[in-house]
């Protein structure tokens, strides 16, 4: 055997992203589950399946083309599958193979999967041509079991399976994360609803969040409403706060005692995470381009967070009024603009602050103005969007829109 790496933990999660078309889903899943069991039966390892979010080991099928794997496959035969070594966790199968189970025909999914999981656990190829970890597929074996060299290799990495760990053996559990199937909240009226959150997002798009919905705001008015989870998979509605940082390209969403991180529309590994250094149930968040920090707000206090440095938050929260002059406590949303002007929202009002973080004259104003909804705007549901800012509107005064791109809120292929 050859040892290529090892996981620093022994209780691993796995996720099956897609399945081959040549086997029924239940047989394919059973084959993949059994592949893990070969290893957990001889070493103190446990494997728990998750059906959403991040997993340590990620199994998927792709063919000659793949948007996320530079190591493309070669059609039927030759290369059957490949995998990364710990702690990367990618396991890919060639979708062009005739994957089978229980027959000498085709390529046995269970045996190949067990081999690739062996790589994902840290084993290289074995010199024993009859070992599971031999590089060449030795064909279907009705009473397959690990070769002594496979067992010696995995135990060299993770030790022997001792009796007490037997009862620790976690069955392949059912998913702990089930997709939210709650009924969506009623559709908000972008022209008059109090907001849950706002953010100046990637490419200068202004996003507004309410309930289960999100829309963009431009100088031609609010865009179409989309379900939050349709854009950011895995993200719940009724958010507390949202903030995009051009510095890190991270989007952070906050709800309750959890924080989600996305890059574009893709959730970052390991999220959501528990909020443990700031209070849960935040009110708002914003990124201030002047000092490149993220500000979090709750009640009458704020935290200033440097995303890339270990910030000592023990001196926070500090009073909002100390830094943001003229702003109400418990804002419902906040955001800043490229030029450093800051907007706070509460109820149906919004405040604009200048670069000295002082509320500008004539504020608060009604949110209808910020949304570029003219007074005669019909109800959102029949919203036509033909709003033109009144002549008295100065672009900078309302939501700055010169940077806004044309509405195409759905993630394009380049997103």
């Amino acid at each position, binding site marked *: 055997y050859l040892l290529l790496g090892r996981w620093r933990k022994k209780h691993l999660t796995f996720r099956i992203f897609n399945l081959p078309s040549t086997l029924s889903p239940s047989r394919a899943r059973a084959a993949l589950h059994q592949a893990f069991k070969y290893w957990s039966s001889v070493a103190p390892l446990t494997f728990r399946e998750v059906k959403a979010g991040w997993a340590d080991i990620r199994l998927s099928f792709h063919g000659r083309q793949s948007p996320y794997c530079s190591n493309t496959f070669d059609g039927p035969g030759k290369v059957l599958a490949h995998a990364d070594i710990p702690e990367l966790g990618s396991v890919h199968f060639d979708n062009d193979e005739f994957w089978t189970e229980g027959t000498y025909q085709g390529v046995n999914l269970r045996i190949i999967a067990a081999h690739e999981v062996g790589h994902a656990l840290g084993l290289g190829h074995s*010199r024993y041509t009859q070992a599971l970890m031999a590089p060449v597929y030795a064909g279907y074996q009705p009473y397959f079991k690990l070769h002594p060299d496979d067992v010696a290799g995995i135990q060299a990495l993770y030790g022997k399976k001792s009796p007490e760990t037997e009862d620790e053996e976690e069955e392949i559990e059912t998913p702990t994360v089930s997709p939210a199937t709650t009924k969506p909240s009623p559709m908000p009226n972008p022209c008059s609803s109090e907001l849950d959150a706002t953010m100046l997002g990637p490419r200068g798009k202004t996003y507004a969040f309410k309930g289960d919905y999100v829309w963009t705001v431009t100088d031609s008015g609010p865009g179409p409403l989309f379900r939050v989870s349709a854009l950011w998979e895995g993200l719940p509605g009724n958010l507390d706060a949202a903030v995009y940082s051009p510095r890190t390209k991270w989007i952070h969403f906050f709800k309750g005692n959890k924080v989600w991180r996305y890059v574009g529309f893709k959730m970052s590994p390991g999220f959501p995470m528990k909020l443990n250094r700031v209070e849960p149930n935040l009110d708002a968040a914003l990124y201030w381009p002047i000092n490149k920090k993220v500000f979090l707000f709750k009640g009458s206090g704020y935290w200033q967070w440097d995303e890339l440095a270990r910030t000592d938050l023990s001196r926070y929260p500090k009073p909002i009024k100390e830094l943001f002059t003229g702003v109400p406590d418990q804002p419902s949303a906040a955001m800043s603009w490229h030029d450093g002007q800051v907007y706070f929202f509460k109820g149906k009002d919004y405040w604009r602050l200048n670069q000295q973080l002082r509320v500008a004259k004539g504020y608060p104003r009604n949110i209808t103005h910020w949304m570029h909804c003219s007074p005669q705007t019909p109800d959102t549901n029949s919203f036509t969007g033909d709003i033109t800012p009144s002549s008295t509107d100065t672009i900078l005064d309302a939501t700055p829109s010169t940077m806004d791109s044309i509405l195409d809120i759905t993630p394009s292929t380049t997103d």
Partner: protein
Amino acid sequence: RALGPTEKEAVLDYLVQYGYLQKPLEGAEDFRLEDITEALRAFQEASELPVSGQMDDDTRARMKQPRCGVEDPFNQKTLK
């Protein structure tokens, strides 16, 4: 020597893809004959085939068999 250009390229691609032969660092395209012979010997030994360092039908057949895409660590020189 007995290989046509197409088969020679396919054999060299296989030996490089699976870690038996390493592209020379100095960027020279051609592999030295002794490196190719050594790589073939390592592959034949790992495959429990007669070790000759020459291409033969058994070696050719083994290279055609379905396998894992991860490299093999059987040529100590390239492994290092």
